[in-house]
């Protein structure tokens, strides 16, 4: 029998695998529109009905009468009466890319990761008993089939629980973390859940029908039996009814797994419309036969039988093995679907808000972000799934598997209900602040732990018996189940009342006295007024807030100007003005490609899906990490290099400008010099010609003298103009060289003859042997240089017995010709000036305009040589260096 059960289980699980796999594939290929139908959505909501519902409701009814209805009443009221609140949550969830209830709350309160961590931790604590509950129900039902202890469900269950836990972990990891992609919904999982919803409803209805019409004698007879049973005698406690209804309503909104199917997996807002009537209908059907089964169980089964297992034991007792197995499958379905979705929801929260930030903090400070962050996120999720289920298993082991299912479930409900004030306050009250939410959550959870969770293990297990009976530190008003003297209340109602009351009070009070940060105010407005801000939520659409985030991020990576240009272009392409385009898929792809160039593809993808898609880590964390990446370092180096280049260009421009200014100054100076050099001889010419014209009776000697002056000055003017033209031609490089073969000796002979022709005492010493050097150059131009140098010596050598020595040396490929006189030479300070135009040194004598050496320098440069002043030779010494013809 047990083997058959295991075989059926395995077959069922394999079937689920196949369905989930097929659905996943169909969805990926874009087929299977029915996968996204409102019916599937409604059925997936049925994970609200867990094994607790399947087995526990009957137990609940057997123990407390109609009270079990409260568990269904709450969600029904929410679905029908709070339809618009749900729609708001769904809209926000889609427009803000919400990934979990922790993400929703943290998002609303300024994307505070601290808050997300708190919610996550509290959700883990709150859901762990619930997972334990599922494991317990599955193991109990297994035990029910084993021959011994069939009716009580005791026995060695731990091993079964472990196997079930491992199997569920495997399934969840396989279908829950196939892909991290922000916009991928878990089609496989959702369809599996929907299928399980059908199985459990069918199973429960089958058992109910069998009990009413198979075991009993039809409906009328059944009603009579119900009237006769003790169920009818249970007194309905008003406070407990109201309390439980509210609690289940709150849990319906706040349970992580409910949030997952209600908001995160939602395909279309419109599905809510169908779900609003279809889900209550489903709940009604599933609760339809609870009372008949409970009554029949109480009647037909021995008094010691566990009411939680009536659903299973009634068919078993009647020998309906097939029905029993169907019933078992229904319970198995309820348990597995709940664990799978809870594990997915919890793993998203744990990995996004706890593991990833820690991982980034640990590695981000030291290592360069090189790897693909998505792999880390996937690993974190898989490990979180394992961790969450493991915790449930541990709780199951610790709590001793004896507590009634309903009690455990209600403890969980009360725990997650603590999210309600922060959640609803965030949706409807813009004044709600992060600190308020934290205060409310903190107070609510502390009270829940103290008044409900810890006592749920039983007095003396965690909380000492003394504390339970006399209060903490012996203060009677701190008794966990009679806080502030509220004695005699039902422990659950007591705990829910105090925790929710004080939670809400703390939330409101702190929100009022604290002031929200800018991000909180922005998010607050987005949440509260979501219908005004968001368009109909599309698959990739988001608000401009996302574009702004993208822009901020892009600016940090690409630089402000480039990022703004890119965004402005995209906005224009979409027909918008300004810098914020709609984050359309096209634009996001373009942006990602752009960013890839700077930070690498993996990081770019993660960054964009971070902002646009579902969060893997907070934006701040990513940016902090991104700032440290090598690529960004490199990018900033490039920026530095660019700015250095700009500085260089600026310097070059400045230098060019200075040079231009300098040239302009030089040109001014040159013109001024030319003017001076021309006007000076003209002054003499004019003055003397006027004297000759106006004054009669000049002495013949004077007349002669003045005419000679006019003549000389005219020659000087001509020479000056010749020199100027010569220099101009040379400087413009327009001079044509007449290259000839010749010897140095011949050239010097010609120069000495030309310059030495004038009368003067200058003695010239030469070394004829050394001068026998072959030249291939413009010998006329070279002679012009030599003439100038000899003439200068003749003019300026101030020795009593002036002499000029011409020395010739061969040095490597060069011929060196030195002209050294025996005068006083040229002062060191003037060495640099003598080759400049108009640089006459000392008192000017008539004749020189100061252009001679400037012309020499130009000529020698044209001839491929150099001329320089040679210091330390006693007198003035000039060195001419020429390449000599080989």
């Amino acid at each position, binding site marked *: 029998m047990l083997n058959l059960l295991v075989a059926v289980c395995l077959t069922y699980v394999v079937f689920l695998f196949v369905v989930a796999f097929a659905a996943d594939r169909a969805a990926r290929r874009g087929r299977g529109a029915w996968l996204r139908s409102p019916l599937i959505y409604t059925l997936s909501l049925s994970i609200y009905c867990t094994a607790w519902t399947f087995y526990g409701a009957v137990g609940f009814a057997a123990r407390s009468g109609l009270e079990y209805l409260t568990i269904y009443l709450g969600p029904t009221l929410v679905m029908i009466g709070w339809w618009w609140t749900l729609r708001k949550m769904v809209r926000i969830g889609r427009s803000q890319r919400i990934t979990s209830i922790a993400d929703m709350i943290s998002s609303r309160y300024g994307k505070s990761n601290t808050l997300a961590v708190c919610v996550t931790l509290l959700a883990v604590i709150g859901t762990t008993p619930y997972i334990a509950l599922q494991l317990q129900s599955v193991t109990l039902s297994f035990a029910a089939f084993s021959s011994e202890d069939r009716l009580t469900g005791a026995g060695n269950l731990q091993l079964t629980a472990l196997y079930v836990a491992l199997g569920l972990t495997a399934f969840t990891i396989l279908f829950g973390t196939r892909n991290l992609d922000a916009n991928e919904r878990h089609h496989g999982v959702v369809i599996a859940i929907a299928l399980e919803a059908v199985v459990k409803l069918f199973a429960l209805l089958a058992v109910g029908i069998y009990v009413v019409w198979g075991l009993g004698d039809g409906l009328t007879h059944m009603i009579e039996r119900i009237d006769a049973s003790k169920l009818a005698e249970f007194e309905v406690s008003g406070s407990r009814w109201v309390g439980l209804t509210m609690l289940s309503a709150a849990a319906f909104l706040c349970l992580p797994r409910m949030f997952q199917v209600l908001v995160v997996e939602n395909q279309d807002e419109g599905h809510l419309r169908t779900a609003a009537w279809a889900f209550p209908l489903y709940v009604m059907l599933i609760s339809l036969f609870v009372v008949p089964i409970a009554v029949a169980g109480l009647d037909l089964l021995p008094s010691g039988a566990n009411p939680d297992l009536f659903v299973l034991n009634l068919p078993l007792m009647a020998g309906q093995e097939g029905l029993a197995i169907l019933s078992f499958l229904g319970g198995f379905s309820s348990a597995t679907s709940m664990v799978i979705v809870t594990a997915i929801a919890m793993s998203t929260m744990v990995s996004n808000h706890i593991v990833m930030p820690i991982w980034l903090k640990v590695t981000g400070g030291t290592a360069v972000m090189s790897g693909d962050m998505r792999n880390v996120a996937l690993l974190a999720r898989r490990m979180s799934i394992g961790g969450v289920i493991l915790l449930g298993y541990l709780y199951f082991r610790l709590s001793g598997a004896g507590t009634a299912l309903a009690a455990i479930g209600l403890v969980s409900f009360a725990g997650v209900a603590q999210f309600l004030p922060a959640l609803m306050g965030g949706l409807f009250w813009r004044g709600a602040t992060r600190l308020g939410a934290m205060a409310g959550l903190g107070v609510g959870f502390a009270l829940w732990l103290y008044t409900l969770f810890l006592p749920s293990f039983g007095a003396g297990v965690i909380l000492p018996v003394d504390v339970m009976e006399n209060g903490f530190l012996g203060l009677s008003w701190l008794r966990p189940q009679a806080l502030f003297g509220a004695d005699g209340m039902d422990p659950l109602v007591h705990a829910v009342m105090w925790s929710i009351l004080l939670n809400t009070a703390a939330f409101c009070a702190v929100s009022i006295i604290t002031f929200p940060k800018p991000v909180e105010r922005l998010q607050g407005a987005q949440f509260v007024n979501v219908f005004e801000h968001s368009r109909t939520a599309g698959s990739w659409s988001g608000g401009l807030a996302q574009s702004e985030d993208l822009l901020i991020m892009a600016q940090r990576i690409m630089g402000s100007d480039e990022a703004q240009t890119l965004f402005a272009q995209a906005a224009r392409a979409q027909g918008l003005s300004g810098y914020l385009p709609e984050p359309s898929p096209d634009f996001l792809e373009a942006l990602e490609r752009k960013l890839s160039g700077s930070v690498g593809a993996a990081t770019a993808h993660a960054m964009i899906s971070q902002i646009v898609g579902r969060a893997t880590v907070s934006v701040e964390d990513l940016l902090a990490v991104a700032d440290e990446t090598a690529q960004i370092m490199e990018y900033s180096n490039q920026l530095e290099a660019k700015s250095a280049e700009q500085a260089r260009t600026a310097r070059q421009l400045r230098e060019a400008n200075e040079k231009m200014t300098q040239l302009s100054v030089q040109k001014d100076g040159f013109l*001024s010099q030319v*003017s*001076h*050099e*021309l*006007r*000076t*001889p*003209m*002054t*003499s*010419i*004019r*003055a*003397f010609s*006027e*004297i000759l014209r*106006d*004054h009669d009776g000049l002495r013949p000697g004077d007349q002669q003298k003045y005419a000679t*002056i006019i003549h000389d*000055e005219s020659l000087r003017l001509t020479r000056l103009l010749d020199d100027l033209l010569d220099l101009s031609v040379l400087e413009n490089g327009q001079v044509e060289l007449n290259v000839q073969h010749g010897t140095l000796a011949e050239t010097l002979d010609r120069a000495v003859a030309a310059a030495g022709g004038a009368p003067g005492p200058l003695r010239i010493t030469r070394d004829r042997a050394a001068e026998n050097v072959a030249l291939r150059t413009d010998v006329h131009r070279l002679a012009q240089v030599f003439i100038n140098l000899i003439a200068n010596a003749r003019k300026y050598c101030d020795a009593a017995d002036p002499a000029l020595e011409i020395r010739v040396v061969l040095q490597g490929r060069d011929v060196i010709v030195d002209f050294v006189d025996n005068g006083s030479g040229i002062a060191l300070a003037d060495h640099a000036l003598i080759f400049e135009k108009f640089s006459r040194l*000392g*008192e*000017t*004598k*008539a004749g020189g305009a100061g252009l001679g050496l400037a012309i020499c320098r130009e000529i020698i440069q044209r001839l491929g040589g150099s001329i320089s002043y040679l210091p330390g030779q006693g007198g003035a010494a000039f060195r001419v260096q020429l390449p000599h013809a080989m």
Partner: protein
Amino acid sequence: MNRQVLLIEDEPNIIEAISFILSRDGWQVKTHSNGRDAVDVVRARRPDLVILDVMLPGRSGFDILTDIRNSDDLAATPVLMLTARGQRKDRELAEQGGVNRYMTKPFSNSEMLSAVRELVGT
């Protein structure tokens, strides 16, 4: 009374020409041909008029003018400035320095003579 003109100029031919023109008109012409000690010569000679070239070896005519105007004993001496550069900038510089008359080379002899007469105030 033979009035004295001090000519500070470095071109020998121009010195000769101006000396001829002025001495024919009855002026006593003293000459000096470098800028370095020109102010000392002015102080020693105490001329009725200084004719000052701008481009002098050793020191610029503008500097000499400034020194003359800044020394109490010489400040009143009339100065006629000669320049061969003829740029407006130079004229402005000279006028700022307190020149009495500014002439550009080449000049006509009669212009020179009348300027000297006018400046000494005969």
